[in-house]
């Protein structure tokens, strides 16, 4: 479990350098010096700020980089009174604020440099400085935030009520009777089911899918049959809904499953149903669906929605 989590994060880390921009992790407002400053003055800055290099700015624009190495060179060649301009390197490789981290990672690898000045692409002004440390810190921070989010989600997706029940297996079953032709009460069962699922603290997206599918099933019973019942079984893994009616049955279930196929009369259409979308809708909302019917006997529709897993989008 732990190993899996770590692996997940590693790949996530790799993904992040393609998603995060340099501007987000760089050090903003870096310490800089002017070109006309004396090299001797660098000592204090290098010491107190504990940095090994800094940009040289003229009117906000980058004109070069000066490093600890440059400083040491001046020290040994007794050139401490020279201006920074004389010793800085001017062929500087720069990065842009809105580049992705992956660009920076490549440049670090290619050049072996320890830091890059970062410019605003439009104005050309210096906006920050980027070290490998900045990248690591930035990515780690983002991972942490995402990890917390994922934790929260995991927590939300769990059905806590079942956690506290001590048993080898825990299941809830609800049963609803559905009266045929009673259009005014139609939808009550699905509505009540939805309320119960909310009480169980299930994730809203799961509740919505189960509610929509059972409402469609209930409406079909009210409109096309003399009635029946619906049982809903909830286990820690999934919700399974079974709908039975007493006929008349569906002659061709494959045809009935087709989007737009309906035998509804005008009267039903003017009540807002009969567009032939119900069964396809149930299929769309569920992870598994099975429709069986016998003419003269009745119809059984079974569908299930997994509480975790692939169709559980977020």
């Amino acid at each position: 479990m732990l190993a899996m989590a770590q692996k997940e994060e590693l790949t996530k880390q790799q993904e992040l350098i393609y998603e995060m921009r340099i501007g987000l992790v760089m050090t903003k407002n870096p310490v800089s010096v002017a070109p006309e400053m004396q090299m001797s003055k660098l000592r204090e800055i290098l010491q107190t700020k504990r940095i090994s290099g800094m940009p040289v700015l003229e009117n906000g624009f980058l004109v070069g980089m000066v490093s600890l190495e440059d400083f040491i060179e001046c020290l040994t060649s007794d050139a401490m009174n020279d201006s920074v301009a004389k010793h800085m390197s001017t062929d500087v490789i720069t990065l842009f604020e809105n580049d992705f981290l992956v660009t920076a990672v490549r440049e670090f690898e290619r050049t072996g440099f320890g830091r890059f000045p970062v410019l605003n692409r439009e104005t050309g002004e210096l906006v920050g400085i980027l070290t490998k440390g900045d990248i690591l810190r930035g990515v780690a921070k983002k991972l942490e935030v995402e990890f917390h989010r994922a934790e929260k989600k995991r927590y939300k997706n769990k059905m806590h009520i079942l956690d506290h029940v001590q048993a080898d297996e825990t299941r809830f079953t609800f049963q609803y009777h559905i009266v045929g032709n009673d259009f005014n009460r139609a939808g009550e069962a699905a509505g009540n089911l939805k309320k119960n699922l909310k009480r169980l603290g299930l994730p809203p997206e799961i509740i919505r899918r189960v509610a929509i599918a059972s409402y469609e099933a209930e409406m079909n019973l009210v409109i096309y049959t003399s009635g029946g019942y619906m049982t809903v079984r909830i286990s820690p893994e999934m919700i399974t809904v079974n709908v039975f009616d007493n006929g008349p049955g569906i002659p061709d279930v494959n045809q009935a499953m087709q989007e737009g196929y309906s035998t509804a009369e005008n009267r039903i259409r003017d009540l807002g149903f009969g567009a032939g979308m119900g069964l396809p809708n149930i299929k769309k909302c569920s992870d598994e669906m099975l429709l069986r019917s016998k003419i003269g006997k009745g119809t059984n529709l079974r569908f299930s929605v997994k509480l975790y897993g692939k169709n559980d989008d977020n």
Partner: protein
Amino acid sequence: MTIEEIVKQLGLKSLTKYDGNATVSGVFASDLLSDVMANSEEENFWITLQKHPNTIAVATLKDLAGIILVNNRKPDEETLEKAKEEGVAIFSTTMFTFEICGKLYDLLREL
């Protein structure tokens, strides 16, 4: 405004022959046949997701300018046949009622 202008502007797909020069007096959006029977006006363009043959009878009775099927609905075969018989123009679009009403509303007001 003519049918042709609307078809062009909204990129409607025509599923039948139609008279591009026919005028459209306004738009009526509804999926309830009784509503259309009671409230639509002559030469209205009818926006709906209903695609069954009864729509053609309604369109003919009310002298509508044509039917626009939304949400990429395809008419039943029988509907198409009846439409051709009665000379009712059918178009289709992937837009939903809300969006196509929005666009048509703008279009009609510009004129």
